């Protein structure tokens, strides 16, 4: 009898403890909630097919998803993270959806680990269409065509961005941020003082280089050391020149590997790049500096005290965040202002026949978990409002054409919007689009070796890259 009673006490004690555990940890509530939403999400596609129904964004605005959380993983940190969060702060306030943003610079690694570990974020940013395609092939991505109006998106967006984010006619990525690579930075005041003029044609550019050299200066700041990513600066150069010396069809066929990687057009483009890279006195520090100096430090000599040590720097519009700054404050105070101390011009066309093409890059958002609130957030990111804050803060260009021009008030956004408006064609960074083994592998390492050998055996290097295509 006594024994049995003792066990009864034990059982009661266990129950009490278990109850405490639940209360203290708040433990079991959230997982069970997630469990419930899973089947609900699966049944959604059928519902949303009805045309007359409210969109998820409208339902979110009506407060239906209040209290839910959506996780986003992207590469934007520090100031860029603040700008990104500024883009959706109002949305969170209105809808009650809590957007939990995590910024990681090495996001491809983190993303792959989390996806393979079954802990994918709800939404992630991806810069390489190649990575998107392999994630899609492994069945990790949600098909956006199931709930978003792709025809409408085609009207709202620069069309090539929709095509880039599609696989077999279905949309898996939503382009959110565009990046223009065909721009060249120069030091405003010194440029004017020296009497230099912004080149309109490739011949102008070559003449300007000669003029700078005749004045005792070094024309180009070019560096590309970036750890295991070393090499992408040169691939951008080759792509930009290829766009200016060959028809768009050639570029597209090259990216899709319908023509060999070492097609004569590509060899020609590499040779033109080589003339700049390896020409005597063209690059600050010579070819060694290109491989040995960190990519973010490229433009520092332009701000040297005794006047620019190099005058021209081809790099996308994020480079100002790497310019010299006063590191004694937190955050560091910029010493030079884009648009005032250094502005950019469009890398001039080479052959009139091919017009004014622009080489771009961009970041798309992909969706891993199909829940109504995640759909609502994706739909929100397709609206102009989701670009408002960052556009006005500067440094953001939206691929969404509905974003009003008068939001692009701050340099460099304003300058980029202008170049985009005057462009005949936009093509996406080829190395980001090719399979990663080439685009983030042999194309990069091949260009590194090419520079290490001072541009010797261009054709051999390109042939080796061709051989490595998977």
């Amino acid at each position, binding site marked *: 009898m006594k*024994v049995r009673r003792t066990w009864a006490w*034990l059982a009661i004690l266990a129950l009490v403890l278990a109850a405490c555990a639940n209360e203290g940890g708040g433990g079991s509530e959230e997982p069970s909630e997630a469990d419930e939403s899973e089947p609900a999400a699966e049944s959604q596609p059928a519902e949303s097919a009805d045309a007359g129904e409210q969109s998820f964004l409208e339902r979110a605005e009506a407060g239906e998803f209040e209290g839910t959380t959506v996780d986003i993983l992207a590469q934007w940190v520090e100031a860029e993270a603040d700008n990104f969060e500024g883009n959706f702060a109002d949305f969170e306030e209105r809808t009650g959806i809590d957007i939990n943003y995590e910024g990681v610079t090495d996001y491809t690694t983190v993303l*792959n680990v989390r996806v393979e570990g079954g802990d994918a974020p709800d939404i992630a940013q991806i810069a390489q269409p190649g990575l998107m395609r392999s994630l899609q092939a492994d069945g990790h991505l949600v098909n956006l065509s199931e709930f978003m109006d792709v025809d409408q998106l085609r009207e709202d967006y620069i069309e090539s961005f929709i095509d880039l984010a599609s696989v077999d006619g279905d949309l898996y990525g939503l382009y959110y941020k565009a990046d223009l690579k065909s721009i060249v930075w120069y030091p405003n005041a010194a440029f004017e003082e020296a009497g230099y003029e912004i080149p309109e044609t490739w011949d102008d550019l070559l003449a300007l280089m000669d003029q700078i050299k005749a004045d005792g200066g070094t024309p180009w700041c070019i560096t590309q050391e970036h750890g*295991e990513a070393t090499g992408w600066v040169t691939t951008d150069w080759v792509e930009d020149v290829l766009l200016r010396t060959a028809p768009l069809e050639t570029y597209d066929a090259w990216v899709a590997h319908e023509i060999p990687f070492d097609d004569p057009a590509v060899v020609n483009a590499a040779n033109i790049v080589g003339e700049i890279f390896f020409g005597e006195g063209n690059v600050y520090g010579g070819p060694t500096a290109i491989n040995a100096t960190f990519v973010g430090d490229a433009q520092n000599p332009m701000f040297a005290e005794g006047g620019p040590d190099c005058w021209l720097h081809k790099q996308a519009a994020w480079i100002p965040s790497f310019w010299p700054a006063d590191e004694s404050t937190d955050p560091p105070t910029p010493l030079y202002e884009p648009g005032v101390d250094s502005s950019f011009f469009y890398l001039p066309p080479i052959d009139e026949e091919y017009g004014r093409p622009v080489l771009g890059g961009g970041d798309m958002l992909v969706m891993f978990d199909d829940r109504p609130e995640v759909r609502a957030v994706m739909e929100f990111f397709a609206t102009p409002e989701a670009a408002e804050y960052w556009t006005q803060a500067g440094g953001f260009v939206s691929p969404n054409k509905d974003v009003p021009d008068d939001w692009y008030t701050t340099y460099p956004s304003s300058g980029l919007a202008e170049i985009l408006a005057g462009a005949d064609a936009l093509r996406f960074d080829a190395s980001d689009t090719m399979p*990663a*083994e080439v685009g983030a592998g042999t194309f990069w390492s091949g260009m590194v070796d090419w520079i290490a050998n001072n541009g010797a055996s261009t054709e051999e290097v390109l042939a080796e890259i061709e051989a490595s295509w998977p």
Partner: protein
Amino acid sequence: MTTATTPLGAPSLRPIDIVRRLLAPLAGVVGILAIWWAIGFLVEEDGPANLLAGLYDTIGLDGQAEAIRERGIPTLTSKLILAVVALGVGVGGIWAVYIGANAVVERLGDTLKRRVLPWVFVGPALLLLSVYLVFPSVSTVATSLTEDGGAAENFGFVLTDPDMLVALRNNALWLVLATGGSVAIGLVIATLVDRVKREALAKTFIFLPLAISMVGAAVIWRFVYAWAPPGQPQIGLANAVWTSAGNDPVAWLQVPTLNTFALILIMVWLQTGFAMVVLSAAIKGVPTEVIEAARIDGARESQVFFRVIVPMIKGSIITVGTTIAIAVLKVFDIVFVTTGGRFESDVIANLMFTEFFRFRNFGHASALAVILFLAVVPLMVINVRNLRRQGIGS
């Protein structure tokens, strides 16, 4: 495990004895519950905040509790609470579980107990090892044989791709030079330092780099090897010295093959201290009578070293050599931080990382892992055999 059996046979038990007997199993139950609760707590994002709020509630500070529920708590506080809970419940809980399990096994018959008891204590460790070591290993081998293009494609790629061959060559260089360099320099220093007055101080300096993580060391040496255009101030130590002798600066990390030697030097700098400490202890274990006898017999100092000391500490040299060799074969951090494998400085472990995380070629990456594993196994065998011979392992 704890509740099913109640073999309380003897009728003459007093209540106090029952309580005493139940105390230990009870501890086990409490331990299991505590661990269960702690896991829930650790996976819960707002766990620490909720716990703190709950504590405030219990002691009557409702206002404070409300504030925490609304605004949360600073990350540092939250992490500290997590650490305390993890430590307390982890250690305490596991201890309680062992006590409980032991108490239950104590009740079993003598023979049964003798058989079961070791498993109770080794069991959890075995289970964790299988989950975290055995299963992943088997799964990696399986992946290397099935994923991507199957075994032939994966291993064919690993053994023929030009980048792979460069990495294999580099790993061979690393294995020979880094291991040989560390052991040889460590042995020389250990011998020399043995006759120095301030031996401890000298040894400390050599030993210090070992305390630095591989990543930390690589970052330091990145600065040492830094390059600036000729004519500019050289912030890198290596180039500052090199250019002061009138030479042009060298991009140590960017020139193929030279960079591999530069990286191997980092490893030697790190591992020499380890070799020195172990070998120094071994040298001190060589009986002075033996050395004196050799000297009396007319042996020169070099002969004493090579014919007497080295053979007598052979076991230690093998142990140190194989241990360093295993670390060297798996080298990743140094290469990843300094060159990222560019400029023909790649090694197997870094290629594995690239194939896995950048290219998502899980088959290639697994095949590389298997190759690395196969390369390490013989070294492990030598090491274990050597330890057994010395009677250290059982």
